[in-house]
């Protein structure tokens, strides 16, 4: 086993474990902190896939900005284990059944997949994740979607103003 494969298994194990801990922690703040660990592990995978830019963006945007926002919201709302709503047993059962069906589907699909066997990393293969390539693709092949995204942001901005502005006249 090469060093890369060891890293791969280490990061995968860490990601799965941290993801489980997100769900299992009683304290929402701990969940958020575990989520940050998940993002770090995923960023590690990106680096293994030779996508450094994506790895850094993932850290800055998700682990940095969004998780801080999450923490703020949780602390502002003062959520803790005691205020967790008591869910109905049938709700839990329905959730387990639905999630279980999805798991069975994914596992059965994965077990049929010959094309996924023995594939772990793409270290030093391809340069698609590098920032130079990303820029080229973004402004050549995907320039139309890129420009149209501006409409999306514009409408979100209009929305934020509409919802956030004080109605003085009413």
């Amino acid at each position, binding site marked *: 086993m090469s060093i890369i494969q060891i890293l791969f298994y280490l990061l995968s194990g860490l990601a799965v474990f941290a993801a489980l801990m997100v769900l299992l922690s009683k304290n929402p703040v701990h969940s958020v902190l575990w989520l940050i660990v998940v993002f770090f592990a995923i960023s590690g995978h990106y680096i293994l896939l030779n996508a450094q830019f994506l790895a850094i963006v993932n850290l800055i945007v998700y682990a940095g900005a969004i998780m801080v926002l999450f923490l703020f919201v949780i602390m502002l709302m003062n959520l803790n284990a005691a205020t967790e709503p008591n869910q109905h047993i049938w709700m839990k059962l329905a959730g387990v059944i639905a999630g279980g069906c999805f798991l069975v*589907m*994914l596992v059965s*699909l*994965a077990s*049929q*997949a*010959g*094309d*996924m066997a023995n594939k772990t990393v793409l270290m030093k293969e391809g340069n698609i994740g590098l920032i130079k390539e990303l820029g080229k693709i973004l402004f*050549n*092949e*995907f*320039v*139309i*979607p890129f420009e*149209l*995204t501006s*409409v*999306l942001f*514009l*409408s*979100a901005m*209009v*929305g934020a*103003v*509409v*919802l956030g*502005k004080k*109605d*003085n*006249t*009413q």
Partner: protein
Amino acid sequence: MNAIIFSALWGVVMMFSGIATQNRKTITGLSILGLVLLLGINCLHAYGIWVIKMDTKGAMHFDSIGLFFNAIAFFATLLYVVLSGKDIENTGVHAAEYYALIFFVLTGVSILTAFNGLLMLFLGIEIMTIPLYILTGADKRNLKSNEASLKYFLMGSFSTGIMLMGIALIYGATGKFGIAGGVSLAPSTGLSVRPSFLEVGGMILLFVSMCFKVSAAPFHFWTPDVYDGAPAVFTSFMATIVKSAGFFAFIKLFDAHTAVLGDSWNILLPFVILITLLIGNITAVFQQSVKRMLAYSSIAQAGFMLFALYGNNDLAKEGILLYAFSYSLATIGIFAVLIKLKDYSLDGFNGLATEYPFLAFSTTICLLSLAGIPLTGGFFAKYYMLSSAIKAGGIFWLVIAAVLLAAVSVYYYFRVIQAMYFKTGAPSFNQPITKAFQWALFGVAVMIILLGLFPTLLLNFFYF
């Protein structure tokens, strides 16, 4: 490209119109002008007279059916603004912004009718739904509106996450965003070339999230609350134009992909159709509020539109155009009346016919069309859907079930008619019913009847 660019630009124009003028009539007039121009520019594209050409690198493909659907959506929006423009103005203080958001939604609709890849599908769906989250919460002082908006936002974001996961899996399997279905990059080691497990899983996730967007059961739970909580004017918009556009995208997306799913598709889809029809129709029977009843009825209508997905032939494509148009007309008509009423419950309609017989007549036509009574547009819409499914074969039992459930739907639509004609009462209105409004609604009723007599009138435009 014409419609996409123009609708986005006019959205910006509407935004700035709020600075230039505080007169709400002017703003509504400006948006009507914009919609007429948009319709014209789209027709110029459809007939090839003036086309903004742009190298989209295969991200988009403009075909006549998509452009024609655009025309239907823009025309329905035009009718909607003409009928309910006053109510949009009175929902809050930001009339110009609401119109801007409506134009952005139309940008999303025109992307969805032309997408040629999953990336554009995603962008189209998001551009279409994000303004809706805001329009749902437009009535800021109303707690129900706030709740509906938040609920819609959270659940919508969740289903978007599922869609993204599906897109990621499909991209992983095929290495491209195309919707052509293509052979997988890495075929499995089996004897024959079979789609990669990632692609199958991705398609199922896409199916789930699209079902959510068009409110097909079992992913319909948000619909009644959101449609009920949102200001009625915007419910009307959401339940008609946006929903039909979602269906159009759904059918376009799965057009070439049903082969990937193989036999499981023939189990999955009939199941979804059946429970959508069942839940929509049966629950609608028990509703006391007409607004909520229309929300369930829109689920039931979604069940019918899903037949086009099953049929997946020329008849289905003609049918979805017809269905989108007749359903939008009828629902916009009923909502236009409902918005004016103070009381949204069934009793609110009591005695409408004695006070405004002309108005009640037009409303009755709309309700009959939704129920699918012959001589109205709704009949042929349902007829096309069911015959496309029969032509595709295999689910005759489901067609019979659909006809039976359509009969159930007659019951709850007729309860409104009964309230209007056979019960006494004095309906109270938020706004005076003007002559112009009555004639506009009558115009809608005439269109519905024309569609019911000559459905080819609409379809001939398509083949022109």
